């Protein structure tokens, strides 16, 4: 197909300043002139037709006799009816984690608000009892959120995690995307796998 050349004669290899043995430049131009056979169009067209027809018939067969463990041969899924299994790393809508009694874990330290690169979070802190802070208002503007996962990363209380929810994120009105604390709270049991995952990826395992 092609040969590995040192390009010793080229002045540019000097400019690049890398020895030819390390550089391993490879010429990709396969040839300059087409053979008569290729010039006649027909041969290559037939070859292309064979490839696409092969895909066509294999996929048709896959529709009629689905391969084991799959609904069909082709790659696509019917979205609302079928859903892909998300990897555990998937970052969906950020949600607040609630204690068993329904109150939020969040202590309104403001780290997520500070870290958020899109300035999507705004917190109004208050005190339940002296020395016990809680977010009186916790607004997450999902119209601004970029799903980067920084809030989850910096949270010192495991109070906000990225859930695997990705539906219902489109609204006709921007104000409807401004989610309040009540809409964001999820019981701890529901986000357990994610909490476990977060603990693992930001744990000592990394160091």
């Amino acid at each position: 197909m092609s040969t590995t050349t040192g390009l010793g004669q080229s002045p540019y290899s000097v400019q690049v300043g890398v020895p030819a043995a390390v550089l391993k430049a490879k010429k990709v131009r396969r040839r300059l002139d087409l053979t008569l056979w290729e010039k006649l169009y027909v041969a290559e067209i037939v070859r292309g037709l064979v490839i696409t027809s092969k895909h066509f018939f294999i996929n048709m067969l896959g529709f009629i006799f689905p391969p084991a463990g799959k609904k069909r041969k082709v790659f696509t899924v019917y979205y609302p009816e079928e859903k892909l299994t998300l990897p555990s790393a998937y970052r969906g809508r950020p949600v607040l984690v609630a204690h068993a009694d329904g109150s939020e874990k969040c202590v309104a330290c403001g780290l997520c608000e500070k870290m958020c690169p899109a300035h999507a979070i705004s917190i109004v802190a208050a005190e339940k009892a002296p020395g016990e802070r809680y977010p009186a208002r916790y607004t997450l503007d999902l119209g601004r959120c970029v799903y980067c996962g920084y809030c989850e990363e910096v949270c010192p209380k495991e109070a906000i995690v990225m859930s695997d929810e990705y539906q219902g994120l489109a609204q006709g009105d921007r104000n409807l995307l401004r989610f309040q604390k009540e809409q964001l709270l999820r019981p701890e049991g529901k986000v357990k796998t994610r909490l476990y995952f977060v603990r693992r990826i930001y744990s000592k395992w990394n160091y």
Partner: protein
Amino acid sequence: MSEISKDLHTEHMVINMGPSHPVTHGTVKFLATLEGETIIDLDVEIGYLHRGFEKMCENSTWQQVIPYTDRLNYVSPLINNTGYALAVEKLLGIDVPERCKYLRVIACELSRLSDHLTNVAAAGLELGAFTAFLYFVEARELVWDLIEALCGARVTVNYIRIGGLKNDLPERFEEKVKYTFKEVRRLWKDVDKLLTKNRIFIDRVRGVGAISAEEAIAYGFTGPCLRACGVPYDVRKAQPYLVYDRMDFEVPIGETGDNYDKYLVRMEEIQQSMRIVEQALAQMPDGPINVRMPQVRMEPKEKIYSRIDSLIYHFKTVIEGIKPPPGEVYLAVEGGNGELGFYLVSDGSGKPYKCRVRPPCFALTAAMPRLVKGRLLADIVPTFDMINMIGGECDR
């Protein structure tokens, strides 16, 4: 004859291609002056995707910039992440652990793979070969599945951190890579057969958009477009960063710098990227992925939950930002389109004083009029495709 043509009233046709035109998919506008079908003048207007990236960086902490860099070249976000993180690390004067370097190499090459797949696919689409487009988009989806398993998102990855990474490899990643690469190679072969020797495709791309090596260098070309001219300049070889000097890969180069060469260079780089990922996975050592510097990269979560000094460091780095020493630094990585450089200036505070990006496709887009002037209208299509102008990167 000349008498007749003197009387005939003719005028040039000025057409606006873009900003929303099927071929200007980086959001750019061409102001083309046509004489019949021949382009006698072409003006490129960029800036339709300008979001003020550089100014935005000046108002964010050093860590907050990383999600913004995802949106530079949105087809290869991991390379942008890496480039920025490496530049800040150079400013800080720190070195990341070995395993982290290998993981970054894997991430970068997966991104490069998706970038080249998208580019060749889009070129096929624009030239009418819709099937080749969808075969490569299928391959790209599979690569993005890998990226999703690794980073948690397909495009807006936010994976690389200053001084480390977000997380380590997920379980059974190597199996997934093996499966994906098998599929990608199969689809690569199909697309190769559909396009590379097809005379219709060759006629469309060969000899079109050719540029000599001297001129390409004068324009500031880098990446696949420069390599297509025969200059074996690759940042990964010329100034090896991370662990690229330990990887065995070839630098594909072309001869004439036309669109066919650019296409072939990209096709070959897809193969080389897969080779690099396989090598990196095989060589990767075990060990930490983050630097043990609480003022740069946060400590493990258990420590933050339990120890007051860790918690204070955590709060300080998040609220005030990492504080690199005052100074300036330029660091280039090999992006999908060429040399992606970050020029950072620090005044010692938690926010960049200046964050300038050297977008590879700006120089390429600037050469657009030179590449298509005097050619036919239809030649804009493959030339612009092979330049692979990405609005997010070019306009920032």
